[in-house]
């Protein structure tokens, strides 16, 4: 790739989707600038870069903008192919994409509901998140420690928000995920991710995220009683 690369990631620190994009970039050793949006105000740059959804994260690469986190991650994979985040064979690639999609559309969405909803929706999210954790345990392939096996892939990138979010889920959801005896692979995954330097560089501190989410939840309950 060109030596003068301009790579920027527009994000807010608490966004799980931003964490995934940051990990993909860090895994590939891509130097990038973080541009933090000050929500609820949306910058001109964001509105121009993502006119359809007007949301973070957005990747800006030498003037081109890409949005939607899994699209961004696939782009990062194609633009900087090594080290690869996808397995070699089409079948294993389909498997990796399947789980990344499941994580994005089910697990992360449930996590967001757990954080932002109240009443019945919160209750449903509490039950769902534990079931989905178990589904992920069963979905994991081989010995690990990463989802698809010995190497980090798209799936780990999609699931990385769980690393700093674990404490928030258990505290604010008043729940306990199954322990290492029941979900050994998931706990081995968490341990491996927690000590991975690219992961550490890509996610906010767990305590910061918990106090941020508590404040956010307080704000939501005051202004939007059902949740957002």
């Amino acid at each position, binding site marked *: 790739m060109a030596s003068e690369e301009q790579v920027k990631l527009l994000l807010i620190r608490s966004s799980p989707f931003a964490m995934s994009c940051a990990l993909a970039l860090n895994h590939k050793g891509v130097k990038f600038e973080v541009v933090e949006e000050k929500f609820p105000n949306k910058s001109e740059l964001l509105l121009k870069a993502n006119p*359809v959804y007007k949301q973070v994260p957005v990747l800006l*690469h030498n003037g*081109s903008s*890409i*949005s*939607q986190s*899994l*699209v*961004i991650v*696939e*782009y990062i994979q*194609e*633009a900087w192919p090594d080290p690869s985040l996808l397995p070699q064979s*089409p*079948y294993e*690639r*389909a*498997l990796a*994409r*399947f789980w990344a*999609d*499941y994580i994005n559309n089910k697990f992360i969405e449930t996590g967001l509901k757990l954080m932002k909803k109240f009443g019945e929706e919160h209750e449903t999210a509490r039950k769902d998140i534990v079931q989905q954790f178990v*589904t992920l345990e069963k*979905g994991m392939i081989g010995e690990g420690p990463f989802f698809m096996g010995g190497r980090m892939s798209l799936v780990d990138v999609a699931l990385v928000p769980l690393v700093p979010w674990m404490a928030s889920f258990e505290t604010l959801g008043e729940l306990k995920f199954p322990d290492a005896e029941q979900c050994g692979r998931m706990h081995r995954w968490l341990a491996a991710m927690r000590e991975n330097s690219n992961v550490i560089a890509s996610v906010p501190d767990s305590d910061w995220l918990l106090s941020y989410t508590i404040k956010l939840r307080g704000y939501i309950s005051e202004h939007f009683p059902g949740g957002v």
Partner: protein
Amino acid sequence: MEEELKVLGAWASPYSVRVQIALDLKGINYTLYEQDLINKSQLLLQSNPVHKKIPALIHNGKAISESLIILQYIDETWPAVPLLPKHPYERAVALFWAAFTDDKFSLSFRDICRTQGEKQEKCIKETVANMLVLEEALKGRPFFGGESVGYVDIVLGCRAVWIQVCEEIGGVKLIDPHNTPFLYAWVQRFRNLDCVKKWLPDFDKLLSYAYMVRNYFLQQ
């Protein structure tokens, strides 16, 4: 090696139809197994234990599910007549628009058909607005894929008859020569392709089916 390719699908499902169109476009042989979605077969439940949904593609015994993932698998396994562009940015643009159409239309089409009054009005309004976004994204090209049909064309185009059904049930035009001239021309062009004509459901049959489902939900 003897290739064995099966598609577990359903005639009314755009998600199934898009897989069938893609395989036919690429000239790939397969056997289609129409699924009973109420009493799901063992094969379906085994092939997609997580979501228990169609479509599923079974290639030499290995099952792949989620229609967009199936399309990408097909494209990677049989690269002739490519669906997705090679260039990373153009590929990202295609992936973005495909995800956009599914994100915006899966639930809203369903709700136009199953609801009435304010709820239906809201879905119609959003859908009309999203069609205008797609009109602009098409930029007057023959296909979203450029000169020839591609990923986004198939992902959106498989909904062509459902679009007509929504128009009928909602009493509104979603694609028309006045407001969305490019999309209007595009949908005729897309529907004219042999691989598309083969699999798009018959309008009257789909409309009957949609009314049956509508009546069921309106009674709830």
